[in-house]
């Protein structure tokens, strides 16, 4: 592991790893990181996989929108309406460019879950004949198959279970190997001519394992299946170019990438969005409405019914610019360095086992672990007492946990603002957990 870590560090340096001064400057951008907790302890925030903290530029962008520009977007002829619309669409440009797509391919959603549901319900509507012959490619019927993976967050599993139930299609899935990586070797047998959708995560929110997207896309194309990528965990931590990845749809959220809650984005290949029937209908997404019938606006507006989350979108745009300015190569390099530290920390404590890959290759700084004899909740409580915030539970991925025979894990996740010192505090606190519960090294209990 040491040599791997050194290699990671070398790679990080050449890629422009943040030095101490730069990292201190980044941290200074996040007001919350300097607060203290019960007993005056400094906060060690290792729960960015659940939600990230927000830099001042994001908070300012939202505030500035309300203080300076607030008005209804895409309607009204007054100056404020123009400025509000510009801010809203400028944010779309920033987020689209951040993930390598055109603004016309980026639909605002309330979160990533809503984005995935939007695709699933559009397919449902197409299956009922909505959208006409152009939407036939989205229609599902008995005999068709939807393929997901055992690694999925419930957000990229339950909508497909429901779609299968509504259309009579069959849900199938790719399993996981013992490292928690998706069994890409099963692609050829599970993804077949019957497969209409292949929905998979870019990076697991539990194991941190990064999916070899190209292989999945290639197989989906061979059989003519649409690909839907859950990019929630990848977009905040890696350079992501959705056009280069070649997926048909991708969903990600604002709040995990330093942006506000209440906003996310759905990417859809332009040609597909144009053919896709709407889901939520009403104001703002129409062209001509009569008492009998309605024609719909072109995408992305076709999928943005009702008043939008404008200030949050503006905040998400600011977050994308902030990350772009840091440079996603530098962010990824810094986090790759932290991945090594996190894995070392967990490996150094007896009786602690990682659920996921234990080497630093092709994984994020997301490390889920089990402490023998101590439930994840109790682990989290003792870490909290040292000021260390980790996630405990099933992380909305019950099937993955079941695959590994555990009900819950504790999970430490790093982000661009995480420091080596924080991981040292985590390591020390983790080392005390089993002793606190009266377990000695090697006893297992």
């Amino acid at each position, binding site marked *: 592991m040491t040599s791997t870590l050194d290699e990671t560090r070398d790679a990080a340096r050449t890629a422009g790893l943040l030095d101490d001064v730069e990292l201190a400057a980044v941290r200074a951008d996040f007001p919350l990181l300097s607060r203290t907790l019960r*007993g005056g302890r400094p906060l060690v925030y290792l729960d960015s996989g659940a939600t990230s903290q927000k830099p001042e530029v994001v908070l300012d962008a939202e505030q500035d929108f309300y203080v300076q520009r607030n008005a209804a977007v895409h309607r009204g002829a007054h100056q404020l309406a123009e400025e509000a619309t510009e801010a809203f669409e400028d944010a779309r440009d920033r987020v689209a460019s951040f993930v390598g797509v055109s603004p016309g391919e980026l639909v605002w959603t309330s979160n990533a879950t809503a984005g995935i549901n939007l695709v699933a319900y559009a397919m449902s509507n197409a299956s009922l004949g909505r959208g006409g012959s152009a939407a036939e490619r989205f229609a599902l019927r008995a005999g068709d198959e939807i393929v997901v993976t055992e690694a999925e967050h419930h957000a990229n599993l339950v909508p497909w279970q429901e779609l299968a139930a509504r259309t009579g299609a069959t849900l199938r899935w790719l399993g996981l190997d013992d490292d928690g990586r998706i069994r890409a070797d099963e692609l050829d047998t599970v993804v077949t001519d019957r497969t209409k959708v292949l929905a998979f995560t870019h990076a697991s929110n539990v194991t941190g394992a990064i999916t070899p997207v190209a292989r999945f896309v290639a197989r989906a194309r061979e059989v003519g299946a649409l690909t839907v990528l859950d990019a929630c965990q990848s977009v905040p931590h890696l350079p992501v170019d959705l056009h280069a990845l070649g997926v048909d749809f991708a969903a990600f959220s604002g709040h995990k990438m330093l942006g506000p809650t209440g906003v996310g984005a759905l990417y859809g290949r332009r040609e597909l969005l144009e053919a896709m029937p709407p889901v939520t209908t009403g104001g703002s997404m129409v062209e001509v409405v009569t008492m009998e019938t309605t024609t719909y606006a072109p995408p992305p507006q076709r999928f943005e019914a009702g008043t939008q989350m404008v200030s949050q979108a503006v905040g998400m745009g600011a977050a994308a610019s902030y990350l772009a300015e840091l440079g996603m190569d530098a962010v990824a390099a810094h986090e790759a360095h932290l991945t090594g530290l996190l894995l070392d920390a967990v490996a150094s404590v007896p009786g602690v086992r990682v659920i996921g890959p234990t080497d630093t290759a092709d994984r994020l700084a997301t490390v889920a672990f089990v402490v023998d004899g101590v*439930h994840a909740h109790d682990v989290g409580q003792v870490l909290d007492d040292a000021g260390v915030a980790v996630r*405990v539970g099933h992380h909305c991925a019950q099937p993955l946990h079941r695959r590994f025979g555990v*009900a819950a894990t504790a999970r430490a996740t790093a982000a661009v603002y995480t420091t080596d010192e924080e991981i040292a505090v985590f390591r020390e606190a983790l080392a005390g957990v089993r002793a606190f519960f009266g377990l000695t090294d090697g006893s297992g209990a």
Partner: protein
Amino acid sequence: MSTGSMEQLYQQVILDHAKFPHGRGLGVAAADLRTGESHQVNPTCGDEVTLQVDLDDAGVVRDVRWEGQGCSISQASVSVLHDLVVDHDLNAVDDLADTFRALMQSRGAGLDDDAEEKLGDAAAFTGVGKYSARVKCALLGWVALTDALIKTGATRTPEDS
């Protein structure tokens, strides 16, 4: 390492019950008893408990049996519940459940001496009330008990007044 608040939360009584739980293991009651069973899950963490309660004709709890998996707080709480409610009638059990809920809502302040004496080992859970995320853990078994009692079909006799 600890600020002392961990020792307050994880009282020795709780750790002991978690390690050596009472009443564990489901089964079948004698034919003259009415059994209610309830399965409860804490969806945020996946903790779960299946609890069976046996009532006799006089409305007295004859036994509580349970299976479950979860954190030390949730498991110890069911174990303590088992010790508390067996041999009490429905009104007394309702009173215990209400008192325990009140303890959880006290934000760590605790209850008066009478109430805490009534709760016995369960008074050790006082510190849990300070951690709102953990209150659900401590209540999991009590929610199962309430539901299981309803499933016995038993009705309460009016309180003496």
